[in-house]
């Protein structure tokens, strides 16, 4: 009796050990053609219906095609605290097998990882590909006395701190654009964080703030209710806003550090063959005609970058943001 119990226990243990071993060896066994054999999930750190969410849904809608992943991608929303909740969850809890991916927003997650105690940073995440880039633009209300960037700057010079800016929260693209603008122009202005891009835009339209930084796509959609004075990017946006100058054209050295890049990432430790499979197929899916057509119908600028380009972009952003945010703390 006793011994049979023992032996059963032993058998269970061996089985468990075998099971664990086989699970552990699974990632190595996954061949490029075997992956993926079931739907792939993607964590979106913002609420359903928001810009990141609906863009994520558009760019992943073709994942089921045989030429891309051959399996659908399922969106899992984990909103809260400006994206921190979702990314903290992803970087600490998600599986590293390529079946659990996440959407990233640069500069948001990099800036947050510098300023706050977060479980994520660029070193424990692996980019797969970038689908979009939404530059920050400077907007003022339709009835604002400012018609050009110069108008606004000369007013700000005479009235320190009086020009109030809205933006979608702290350490997001809009805030970074504001910090850069303030630093490079040497002007004293006030930033009022809002709960998201839409309320921030509303404050500009309603005249509650004098100006704001917002997404190019949202500003473009609202071009009847706001004036767009400048784009925080290296080049003008020829597709949506060909007539709006960049800050650099106007002599203010604001580069593309605040551009809101959106893409897909995996956790560090994901098997390399899975990573390379995903980083080959996913950009093709982003570039599909159906995807780009739907994206431009929704007013969202597409910018597809490969894994290598994103790795480089993340590193550059981190270096720059550390410098910019260190200045701020002084």
């Amino acid at each position, binding site marked *: 009796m006793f011994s049979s119990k023992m032996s059963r226990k032993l058998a269970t243990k061996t089985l468990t050990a075998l099971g664990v071993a086989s699970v552990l060896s699974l990632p190595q066994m996954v061949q490029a053609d075997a992956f993926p054999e079931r739907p792939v999930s993607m964590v979106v750190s913002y609420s359903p219906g928001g810009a990141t969410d609906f863009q994520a849904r558009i760019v992943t809608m073709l994942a089921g095609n045989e030429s891309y992943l051959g399996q659908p991608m399922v969106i*899992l929303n984990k909103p809260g605290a400006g994206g921190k909740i979702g990314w903290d969850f992803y970087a600490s809890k998600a599986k590293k097998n390529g079946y659990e991916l996440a959407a990233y927003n640069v500069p948001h997650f990099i800036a947050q990882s510098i300023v706050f105690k977060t479980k994520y940073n660029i070193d424990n995440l692996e980019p797969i590909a970038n689908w979009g880039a939404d530059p920050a633009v400077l907007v003022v209300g339709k009835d604002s006395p400012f018609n050009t960037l110069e108008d606004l700057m000369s007013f700000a010079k005479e009235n320190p701190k009086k020009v109030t800016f809205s933006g979608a929260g702290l350490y997001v693209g809009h805030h970074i654009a504001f910090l850069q603008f303030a630093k490079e122009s040497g002007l004293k202005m006030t930033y009022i964080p809002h709960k998201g891009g*839409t309320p921030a835009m509303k404050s500009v339209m309603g005249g509650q703030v004098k100006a704001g930084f917002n997404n190019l796509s949202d500003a473009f*959609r609202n071009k009847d209710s706001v004036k767009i004075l400048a784009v925080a990017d290296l080049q003008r946006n020829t597709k949506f806003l060909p007539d709006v100058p960049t800050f650099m054209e106007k002599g203010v050295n604001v580069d593309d550090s605040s551009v809101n890049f959106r893409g897909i990432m995996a956790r560090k430790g994901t098997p390399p063959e899975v990573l390379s499979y995903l980083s080959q197929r996913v950009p093709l899916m982003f570039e599909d005609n159906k995807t780009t057509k739907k994206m431009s119908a929704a007013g969202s600028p597409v910018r597809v970058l490969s894994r290598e380009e994103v790795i480089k972009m993340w590193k550059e952003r981190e270096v720059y943001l550390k410098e910019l945010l260190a200045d701020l703390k002084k």
Partner: protein
Amino acid sequence: MLEFLQYLPEVFTPWNFMILVLGTVGGLILGATPGLSPTMAVALLIPFTFHMEPATGLILLGAAYTSTVAGGAVSAILLSIPGAPANIATTLDGNPLAKQGKATSALHYCFISSFVGGVIGVFVLIFFTPTLSEWALGFGPSHLFWVAILGVTVIGTLGSGSVVKGLFSGFVGLWISTIGYDPVLGVERFNYSEHLGGGINIIAALVGLFAIPQVLSMLTPQMMPGGVQKFAMETQSVMTSVKETLQRWKALVVGSFIGVLVGLIPGAGGQIAGLVAYDQTKKLSRNKEMFGKGEPAGVIAAESANNAMVGPSLVPLLTLSVPGSPTAAVLLGGLLIHGLFPGPALFTEHAPVVWTFINSLLVGQLLMCVFGIMIARYSRFVMDIPEFYMAAAITVLAVFGTFSVQNSFSDVFVMMTLGVVMYFASKIGFSPSPVVLGIILGPIAESNFLQGQMIAEVGEGSFTYFFGGPLNIVLVGVVAMSIVYSAYSELKQKKQQRTAQQNDADYRAEQEGV
């Protein structure tokens, strides 16, 4: 002006109409499920609209928005568990009515007044959109702060319990709302556990505070104090209910008007429409003491308000891309996916789609009322289910509903904890409504105060910013009136009680003396 009539037939094409009916019936059922709020329902449906024609997709979202708001009243009345934050005020009188054996009438009042409020709301959307959207934009941080404070003044008098307990519960709610990250500056507060990282989600709190105490009470044997009282459902003809609802036209008017107003204001949170309307109706009513004990006017005011909010919340959304309610914010995503950019051009460039959508809201109100009344008829079968099955079903729904909001188990733990605490608190006379109201109003008041403060500091100064301008003055006036009136009626009631007691005592003294 009557352009909308031109596109009315579009709603009745077989496919569109089928989607509208499906959306309405599905919405009523989803709405009645605790934890599935209108915002969630619309968000869940957006991916399904991907492959539909834009108009059809929007019909589905619009139908879901309309009917989930009304459907939430079913569980509010029958189980005292509001399906969504918008239905909190409905529980206050709806559930006592049901316990008095008037559940069918309560459900009828609810759907009829939802229909009236909803139609008024859609007409506001059809006829006054351009005029009102500019007005809605004028609401800045200072005004929203006062609107939230107006909501706070309602807290003490909510329900039939004592004012002090009401205020205390409201205070606890306000405190709960500060857990997590500061809405403006991102500072962590009261973050003792990993589960509290994102703050307390409003849906988790709503489900926990209302549903769990109900479940626990259902499991208490009926003989014991605190057991749930079973009630039968009466039969009532719809015509009688229509007549009784129309007799209380004052509640309908007040509810619809406040619903429209709150819906228009971006950022005020449509959930408070029902509560404010309920409170105002109570204040204007001659038999105040009946409220909270099963007064039909309470149900009528609350439900007409939360459906009247639907149409107007789309006014600033469609013309200026500024959503008037959290659900409208989600709906914005649904519009963008189909390349429909809200703005003045929307009504010219995409007239067929937009007008078909708005018409479907109008027709949807009628369908919602008809199907709602049918559901009321079949609710009796739900009520016949033995309590332990009911308790199990509610628990399952509560857990799934809470989990699905953010796919988070932390929310489920928070929901359970709040629920168990609320169960014991309810034993000593505390009610959940003021707590939830505190949780809803806290962030609105706080973030708008902080934003306003930041703007005022570099501008005209805090006093001028918060008290200057006609809109601020009007709002402060309303707030002051609300407080003074509450205090006045409270004192009057006390005085009446005291004279009554005095008379009693005198009488007794006389008797004894004799």
